[in-house]
C-alpha cells in the first residue's frame, strides 16, 4: 500500500510541479509580449520621411548619378565634382513621370515625352519648362544624406 501510495504521491507531486511550471509560463509570456510591445520601434525610414540615405560618397564616381528610391519622391544624387554632390528630384516637372539618368550624355531624360534636363536640373529640351527641385545634401563620413 505504502509503495503504491508512495508512487502515486511521487507521480502526483511530479504532475503538480509540471502543471505549476506550465502555468507559470504564462508570466514570462505576458511579460515578453508586453516588453516587445513597449520597445520603441526603430524610426529609420520614418524620420521626417524627410531624410534620405543615398549610399556612400566613395561608391559614386565623379560625373555619375545614383537613383535613390524613396516612396513617391525618388531622387537623383549626382556627383558634380570631388567634393560636390547635387540632389535633384527624379520626378519630371512636366507630367510627373519618373526620370532616367543618361550616363553617356550626363543628362536626365524623361521617357514619357522625351524631356531632357541637364545635370543641374535645368530643362534642356522637350515639354518640361520648370527646373527640377533641388534638395540639400549632407555628407556625413562618406554617407550621403539628402534632406527633402
Amino acid at each position: 500500500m505504502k509503495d503504491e501510495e508512495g508512487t502515486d504521491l511521487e507521480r502526483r507531486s511530479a504532475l503538480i510541479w509540471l502543471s505549476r511550471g506550465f502555468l507559470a509560463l504564462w508570466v514570462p509570456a505576458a511579460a515578453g509580449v508586453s516588453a516587445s510591445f513597449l520597445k520603441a520601434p526603430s524610426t529609420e525610414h520614418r524620420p521626417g520621411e524627410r531624410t534620405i540615405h543615398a549610399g556612400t560618397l566613395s561608391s559614386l564616381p565623379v560625373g555619375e548619378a545614383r537613383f535613390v528610391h524613396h516612396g513617391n519622391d525618388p531622387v537623383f544624387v549626382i556627383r558634380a565634382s570631388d567634393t560636390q554632390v547635387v540632389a535633384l528630384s527624379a520626378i519630371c516637372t512636366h507630367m510627373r513621370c519618373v526620370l532616367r539618368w543618361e550616363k553617356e550624355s550626363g543628362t536626365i531624360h524623361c521617357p514619357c515625352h522625351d524631356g531632357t534636363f541637364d545635370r543641374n536640373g535645368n530643362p534642356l529640351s522637350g515639354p518640361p519648362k520648370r527646373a527640377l527641385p533641388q534638395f540639400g545634401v549632407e555628407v556625413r563620413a562618406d554617407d550621403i544624406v539628402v534632406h527633402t
Partner: protein
Amino acid sequence: MSGLRQWPPTIALALALAIAAPRAAFAQEPPAAGGDAAGTRREESVPPARSIPPGAKPAKHSKMCGVCHSDIRVKYEKGVHKSEGVPCTSCHGGDANSITVAGAHGAGFRGKPARKSIPALCASCHADVAKMRFYNLPSDQYALYQLSYHGMRLAKGDESVAVCIDCHGVHEIRKPDDPQSRVFGRNIPGTCGHCHGDPDFRRRHGLKDDPVKDYEAGVHGKAYLSGQDPSAPECTRCHGSHGATPPGVGDVEKVCGQCHLKTRNYFLASPHKDAMDQAGQPECAACHNSHKTVAVPPEKFAESCLECHDKGDKEYKVALALSRMKDDASAQIDKADKLVAEAAAIPLYVEDYRSRLQDARTALLEAAPVTHSLDTLLVEPHTRRARSIAARVSEELHEKLASRWWNKVGLGLFWFYLLLTAVIVTRARRRAAGERGR
C-alpha cells in the same frame, strides 16, 4: 465671334453711310480727281509705300478717321497696331488730319484694300526686316504664306482662302499672347475651325471629317484645351501658321517627330516607313489618326495591324508577339498592384513597393516608342524589366501577407495552451470542490 464673311459688307455699309451722311449734310463738293465716288473699292496692285518713316514719332490716335468711323476706331484702339502707333492711313492711305470727307479720302486714299492684295499690304511692313527688328518680330510670314496652301490658292485666284485678316483680325489685332487674341494658343482651333470646321466649307471642298471636332476629341486636343498640358500641339504646331500646309504622305513623321523624337527614330528604322510611303499611307496618322489623335488601346493592339496585314502573315505574328509581351508585363503589374493595396490595408509599409512598381510602369512606358521599331528584340528588354520588377514585388508581398497566416497558426497554438491551462484549473477546482463539498 461674328462671321468673318459678314465684316466686309458691314464695313462697306458703314463706310457708305458714314460718307453719304455728312455728304448730304454738308453738300460737299465731289471729291477731287484721283478719287472715285466714295464707297467704291479701288483696286491696288502695287503695295503702297509706308507712310511713317522709321524713327518718326508714331501717330497718337486715329485722328480724324475715327470721327466718322467710330465703331472701327473702338475696335482699333483695342489692338496692337494702335499701341505701336500704326495709323489708319498706313493701310488705307488718305489724310488723317482732314476734317472733310473729301480731304480725308483725298490724296492716296486706298479705301478698303482688295482681299487679294491684303497679304502684300501687311507684308509691306511685316516682311521688312529693318522695320520689324525693333519689335523682335519675324519677317518671313509673307514668304511662308506664299508657299502655303492658302497663299498658292490665292495666287491662283481663289479668294475664299484665309488671308492675314481672317486669322489676325482686321482692326482689332491683338498679340498672340493676349488671351483674347484670335491667334492665342487656345483660341487657334476656333480660328482655324471657323472655315475648316464649317460644314458648308467642307462640303464645297469635298472634305469628310471635321478636323476641329476631331482634334477636340483626341488626346492632343483634350490635353491642350483643358489647360492640363500647354506643350501639347494645336493646329499651327503641326500644320504651321503662315506656311500652313498639310504634311504630305512621306512627311507626317517629320511633323509628329518634332515632339515624339524617339518614336520617330524607331519608326524610321522600321519596315513601316518605306512600306507606308509606297502604299501612300500617312505614316503616324494611319494608326493614330491625324486630328483625333489617340493611343492604340493595348487590347486592340494586334487587331489594328489587321487593317493592312492578314491573319496568316508573319507581320501579324510579330504583332501578336509584341502584344503578348506588353500584356504580360501589364498583367504582372496589375497583380502586384492588387497585392500592394491588400498590404496597405493591413497596414504594411508599402511605399517602397509602390515606387518599384512605378519603375516597372516606366519601363513599360518606355516600350511604347520602341514598339514602333517592330523589333521584338528591342522591345523585349523593356517589357522583361517591367515584368520582372512586378514579379519580384509580388513575391515579396506574398511572403509578407503569408505571415498573416502564421497569426492564425499562433492563435491555434494559443488555444492549445489555453485549454491545457483550463484543464489544469478544472482539476484543481474539482479537487477543491471534493475537499470542501459544494
